[in-house]
């Protein structure tokens, strides 16, 4: 508590929480940052969000009839013709003769049983049909983003902290949409414990997406940039 004062000044302009606001936001993204509803490291968990993930599932059966039922219903609802799932414990396959087709959204490939992942597959659906834009908007998890945005390499946050696109509030952003990056290009700074940690691209290509707004808190593994090879 005696350390109270000495820690109030933030290297990135002003006090904690306000520094971010002071930083330039206009260029936060090349393609409409506000639309992206990027996932916050700090997320307020509403009921709706939390339920699908945890919902301590039916106690009594390894087969988990509830999940199978839901799966089958999903399968039908989406007009699928084939479904396979396998992990260390379980393998599931469903298929239907495509004869009475006509359904539009057949492209979804649900890859998991848990409702949590169902959220992700909804996102994948968007990604597949509507194309690039949708996925990262809804999905926070790295893996899903990586697998669905076919062409993009995702640069994720290696640490927890606050994301800054420029070395100083008034400076230009390290990279913007369209910037060419090499392995050692600094793409942003993550501030943690008063330290400015530079994040390198560690890939080559052109920046196609910026998922996070300047000054925004990010958690470990959170997608920061999408890079087109």
């Amino acid at each position: 508590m005696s350390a109270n004062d000495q820690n109030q000044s933030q290297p990135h302009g002003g006090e904690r929480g306000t520094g971010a606001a002071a930083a330039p936001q206009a260029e936060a993204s090349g393609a409409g940052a506000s639309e992206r509803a990027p996932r916050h490291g700090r997320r307020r968990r509403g009921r709706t969000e939390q339920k699908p993930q945890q919902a301590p599932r039916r106690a009594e059966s390894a087969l988990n009839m509830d999940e199978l039922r839901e799966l089958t219903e999903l399968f039908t609802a989406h007009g699928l013709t084939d479904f396979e799932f396998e992990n260390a414990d379980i393998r599931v396959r469903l298929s239907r003769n495509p004869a009475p087709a006509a359904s539009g959204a057949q492209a979804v490939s649900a890859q998991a049983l848990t409702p949590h992942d169902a959220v992700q597959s909804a996102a994948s659906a968007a990604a597949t049909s509507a194309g690039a834009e949708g996925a990262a908007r809804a999905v926070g998890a790295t893996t899903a983003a990586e697998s669905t945005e076919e062409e993009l390499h995702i640069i994720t946050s290696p640490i927890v902290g606050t994301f800054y696109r420029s070395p100083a509030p008034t400076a230009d952003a390290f990279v913007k949409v369209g910037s060419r990056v090499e392995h050692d290009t600094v793409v942003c700074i993550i501030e943690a414990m008063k330290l400015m940690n530079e994040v390198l691209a560690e890939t080559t290509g052109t920046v196609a997406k910026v998922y996070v707004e300047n000054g925004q808190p990010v958690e470990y593994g959170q997608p920061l940039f999408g890079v087109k090879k």
Partner: protein
Amino acid sequence: MRRFRKILIANRGEIACRIIWTCKEMGISTVAVHSTADRDSLHVRFADEAVCIGGPTSSQSYLNIPSVIAAAEITNVDAIHPGYGFLAESSYFAEICEACNIKFIGPRPDVIRLMGDKVEARRAMKEAGVPILPGSPDPLKSEDEARALAREIGYPVIIKAAAGGGGRGMRIVRTEEEFGHAMQTAATEAAASFRSADLYVEKFVENPRHVEIQVLADEHGHCIHLGERDCSIQRRHQKIIEEAPSPALTPELRERMGATAVAACRRVGYSSAGTVEFLLDEDGQFYFMEMNTRIQVEHPVTEMITLADIVRNQILVAEGKPLWYKQEDVLFVGHSIECRINAEDPQTFAPSPGLITAYNAPGGPGVRLDTAAYPGYVVPPYYDSLIAKLVVHARTREVAIARMRRALEVMVVEGIKTTIPLHQGVMEDPYFRAGEYSTRFMEQFFERRKIQGGLAASGGA
């Protein structure tokens, strides 16, 4: 004196949930931190906010101080509750919290450091008039010095790592011939486990009980105790069953041990909840072992018989509030037993992580379950194997044992192996039922079992 609006819980599993429950009861917001392996954990679900702080291994996440502090900064919390394990007894972490103007919910860093060093702690306790086992006050300088001391104390003696715990770096020596070899082995283990080969030697008590006193202290010099827990039922120096009160204590002995623990805390300027562990010999003599400067796994048995919420008290005193009750206000009602349900083989103790395919939580009268498990939960292989603490409370010890048997019977955890069958065996054991046991109980229990034809004979998994 401050009022916490938001607390980060730098832990996982059942204790993270446990802390969240109390925060909710106090109207304090919570932030869960988690590794990538714990995305689907209940503490992540039930906290108000959650931050992923790193990869699956503890060193990448729950032990990663910069990540934890950064998570606290971006979520703007007032305080961090460290739970047990991980960073709970890291004086370095407590200092960093202090430097970052985040209240560490626990005692001051210097007190953590003092009590974390066995030799220093021993010295401080001796000065406070706390009985300690005859032995070396300082780390041993040579084998010769150690031998001389052992001869003075009289065999058997025990050699311990100064920085140790959990049974590593410990050797019992019964004759002088064994001494040299034992000391070398202990030094090697100590160096490997704790990065310090410092050892000390002390009197070895033959059939001791592990009896610990729960204390509560505020930052204004008030300190009380909430009675004892008997944690003698251990395997490989890991507690697995705890109860309160101890079947071995008289009211008079309880009062003396409690007063001793309180005196020890006062001496070192302790604040927050803490536990003073004693070795109790067959003659009713007790000796200081160590002090744990954190909430303990087995705190619920004390909560059951006192109706106190120890986590609530930790938070209140961390806010700078004085303890709301005095020693004479502490209630003691009935008897409580805790069984640690671990995801491990009940015979070999080999860890058994994996998917919980079926699950039923016992309920009804006098049953408390602290857990983060649910049907469909995957117990990750990266952390300790504790998945649930089954706690019972009843007016008498006899009914408490019957209740534990019933609760173990209706508790269903399938898909992984658990210690449930082991606990069922202990609840049937005549020595346990009579309350006649020492820290050697499990060893003797398995010997008796072997004679009777193995655990399987009594319904083991």
